């Protein structure tokens, strides 16, 4: 077991997490700000006996992933926002065919070519399926390099547990910043994983078919019932981190890099006596709605801070709707927020509330 701390970029932490999870196949296409991942794995994975292909397109990379997934291999692709749009076709097919795969999105500004700067503009795309049809992918949102490593290792287990694509949603801040991490070798690929469904040639058994086409009357409805029951089981994976929420009057809800920035805001406001806390969803799908509802039932108020024009706030409002609402504090992609940027708006929110109560 390795316990030494190493200084790596978030992108490298993800690549190392994939290696330590026993990733066997990785397919990618260069795009900023995630290219450290293919650069790392083009050497490390091949040296470890795995398969790396620099594909001709994001579309091809995602479909190679589909092929490797159909063979029951631990496989991954990574990209950034515009590239993730191109992968959606294959992600939809993998979701429809019950195929496990890990897809990393180190997101950048959009729409269109947008920018290469950080953004949380892909929240809807990641949590609503993203491609055509009615499906969900598990979505993990790390906020530190260590968590990027840990969640990548765990993403492979989740993908195979549920036979479903798993999205790791980071941004350019996470991908490009350097932090010390501790790596730990996971149990890797468990013995016999996927052997009961993966394609390997029909030797001594009935042929297997992995598909998403259901033409006969009622067949697709049955398939949907199967998918829905899978998504219901996935709800058990919902996770969030709470920071000083116990006595908080106002709970900031933020994820990923922005949650990290907001954490500093909260520390600073606490020294001024504001009773403010942080709820950080770690899984964006399933969304940790029960934990938020619990906080709401205690009479707390909410503000969602996002690096987009307001997307996760919908899920926060749905989660707390029986007891509360959520304000929205948007930082538009193209601007990089500092902890101080959130202080004044939060003070105002809390002062307004006090005035309302006094009135």
């Amino acid at each position: 077991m390795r316990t030494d701390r190493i200084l790596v970029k978030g992108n490298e932490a993800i690549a190392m997490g994939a290696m330590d999870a026993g990733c066997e196949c990785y397919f990618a296409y260069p795009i900023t700000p995630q290219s450290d991942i293919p650069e790392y794995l083009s050497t490390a994975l091949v040296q470890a006996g795995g398969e790396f292909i620099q594909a001709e397109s994001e579309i091809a990379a995602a479909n190679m992933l589909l092929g490797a997934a159909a063979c029951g291999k631990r496989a991954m692709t990574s990209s950034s926002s515009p590239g993730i749009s191109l992968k959606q076709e294959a992600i939809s097919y993998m979701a429809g065919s019950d195929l496990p795969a890990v897809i990393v999105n180190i997101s950048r500004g959009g729409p269109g070519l947008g920018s290469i700067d950080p953004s949380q503009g892909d929240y809807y795309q990641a949590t609503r399926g993203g491609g055509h049809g009615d499906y969900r992918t598990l979505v993990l949102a790390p906020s530190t390099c260590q968590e990027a490593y840990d969640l990548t290792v765990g993403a492979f287990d989740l993908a195979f547990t549920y036979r479903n694509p798993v999205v790791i949603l980071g941004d350019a801040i996470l991908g490009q910043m350097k932090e010390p991490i501790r790596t730990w070798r996971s149990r890797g690929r468990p013995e016999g994983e996927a052997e009961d469904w993966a394609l390997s040639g029909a030797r001594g058994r009935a042929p297997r078919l992995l598909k998403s086409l259901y033409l006969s009357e009622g067949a697709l409805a049955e398939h949907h019932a199967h998918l829905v029951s899978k998504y219901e089981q996935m709800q058990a994976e919902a996770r969030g981190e709470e920071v000083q929420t116990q006595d908080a009057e106002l709970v900031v809800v933020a994820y990923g890099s922005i949650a990290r920035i907001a954490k500093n805001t909260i520390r600073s406001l606490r020294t001024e006596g504001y009773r403010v806390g942080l709820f950080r969803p770690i899984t964006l799908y399933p969304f940790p709605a029960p934990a938020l509802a619990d906080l709401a039932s205690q009479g707390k108020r909410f503000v969602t801070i996002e690096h987009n024009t307001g997307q996760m706030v919908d899920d926060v409002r749905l989660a707390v709707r029986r007891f509360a609402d959520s304000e929205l504090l948007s930082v538009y992609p193209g601007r990089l927020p500092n902890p101080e940027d959130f202080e004044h708006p939060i003070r105002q929110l809390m002062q307004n509330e006090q005035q309302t109560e006094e009135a």
Partner: protein
Amino acid sequence: MRNQEQAVFSVPEVMVDTPMHFCPGCHHGTIHRLVGECLSELGLVDSTICVGSVGCSVFIYNYLRLDAVEAPHGRAAAVATGVKRARPENFVFTYQGDGDLAAIGLSEIVYAANRGEKVSVVFVNNTVYGMTGGQMAPTTMVGQKTTTCAGGRSQERDGAPLKMAEMLASLEGTSFSARVAVDSIAHLKKAKKALKKAFEVQIQGLGLGFVEFLSACPTNWHMNPLEANARISGELSAYFPLGVYKDPGQAVEASGGETCIRM
């Protein structure tokens, strides 16, 4: 005394004994059978992973008893790449139509061939989008009428029909490329030989094996099966010459500098 009866013709065991959804006179069924025969004769059935595509050929997994995965439209060559890299010990083939391979999937097949992926590709060219009701395909002949070129394909507007066997033969990673037809017994025999070769180059690890079948679509050609067959031996074979365009064993200079072995 000799046995009274001797089986001289039977259905390969890999074929499922079920009615096919193909229209009368369609060549898909014949080509499916050739695939089944070649897999059986080469002993590949229980090590094969079939990559299906989108179009009339989508139900290949209903007719051949094989492990199979369904690829998105056009992506079969990329999916097959992932399958083969994940399981190099398995035999992997795609079965794709002309809309799938030569239009939306052109990038995927060209790059899979150029990388020399050890997969085999069965390409069924019937010059039309069959499943969607007869629209213009990348292989539709100039002048051919379809539902999206009612006045006939115009080369000025739509370009000329793509010659895939020739295009892929020009790539270093393609080990074998041929164009065949199943419109006559003689052609059928040659087609089987070519298909077997396209399978063998994969087993030998030489690169990508490609066979283009000129295939009849009487329904969308508005012809009876015999007229459709005649169109293949006449008009289509004149523009899409049958022959071997790349063969790891032998290469013959044909007229016009094109390397081609006429079949």
